[in-house]
């Protein structure tokens, strides 16, 4: 009798356990994955401020920090000076930053910002298609670290510490 009651509870217990493991895109997170469990970063082809095509697959062999951001996003603005430093510091070791701006106003909003802040890495304007390829980017900033094989090694949703990025980058560059 007691055992049959327990059996009836098993599905509910499993559901609760799974709910606890799932992560909503709204929540901030900081996740690194082991090399074997990494998923391939979806390729995209977008134009930068000079009209040149930026394809993620062209960066294969490099560690890429892929940052979804917007000019109206205050936490995003905190991180951008760090990314400028990372680009400068690690570029020669096979590292690159790509910024994907999600501003509805496109270059009208983004171009003045990247010029005023001397952004030294490639910035493109994102769209719903690219967002969908990455599971629907809603929370900004969302930043992915892509390894030299083109796989997603870490995903950060929301503002995280500069040290956290530096640890990820160092680990991936040394692999």
């Amino acid at each position: 009798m007691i055992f049959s009651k327990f059996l009836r509870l098993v599905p509910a217990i499993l559901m609760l356990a799974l709910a606890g493991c799932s992560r909503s895109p709204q929540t901030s997170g900081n996740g690194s994955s082991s090399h074997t469990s990494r998923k391939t970063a979806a390729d995209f082809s977008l134009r930068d401020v000079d009209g040149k095509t930026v394809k993620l697959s062209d960066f294969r062999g490099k560690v890429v920090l892929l940052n979804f951001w917007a000019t109206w996003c205050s936490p995003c603005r905190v991180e951008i000076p760090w990314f400028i430093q990372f680009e400068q510091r690690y570029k020669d070791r096979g590292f690159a930053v790509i910024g994907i701006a999600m501003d509805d106003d496109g270059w009208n909003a983004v171009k003045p910002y990247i010029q005023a802040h001397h952004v030294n890495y490639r910035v493109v304007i994102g769209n719903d298609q690219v967002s969908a390829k990455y599971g629907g980017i809603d929370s900004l900033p969302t930043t992915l670290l892509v390894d030299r094989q083109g796989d997603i090694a870490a995903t950060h949703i929301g503002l995280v510490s500069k040290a956290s990025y530096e640890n990820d980058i160092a680990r991936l560059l040394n692999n």
Partner: protein
Amino acid sequence: MAGLMAAALLPAEVAKSGPLSVPAPHKLMLKRGATATAPIRVEVRNGYHVNSNKPSEDYLIPLTLQWGAGQLTSTAVTYPPPTMEKYAFSPAPIAVYTSDFTITAKFKALGTPGTGTMSGKLRYQACTNNMCLPPKTVEVRLPYEIE
């Protein structure tokens, strides 16, 4: 019975988009040619804030309420004073709305007597302590009766 009571306690209609919702405003009663104000209550989910109508930085997207055309003419929209809050991403406190607040909308009845619904668009942009959501728009529907 308990279910019926719970249903009766719920607002007739709640306009919701993301972490912000607007319970259905009460019907606005006014005489032809007269003016009246409607309180528009706004609720922001715990842990989120929205930029005030006059944000602290020019790059932030302000909260705005704009009414469409109808038998009532919008003559003023008054926003409450913001609270100044400090977040992980801001070196100084910024002007935001959190929790519940009320916008006051003033109308003049220039149309003919009768009933109708004014439609407004509440645009906002919400963030937490460490991330932001894209700007969203909620439709606000205000029922009215001109006597």
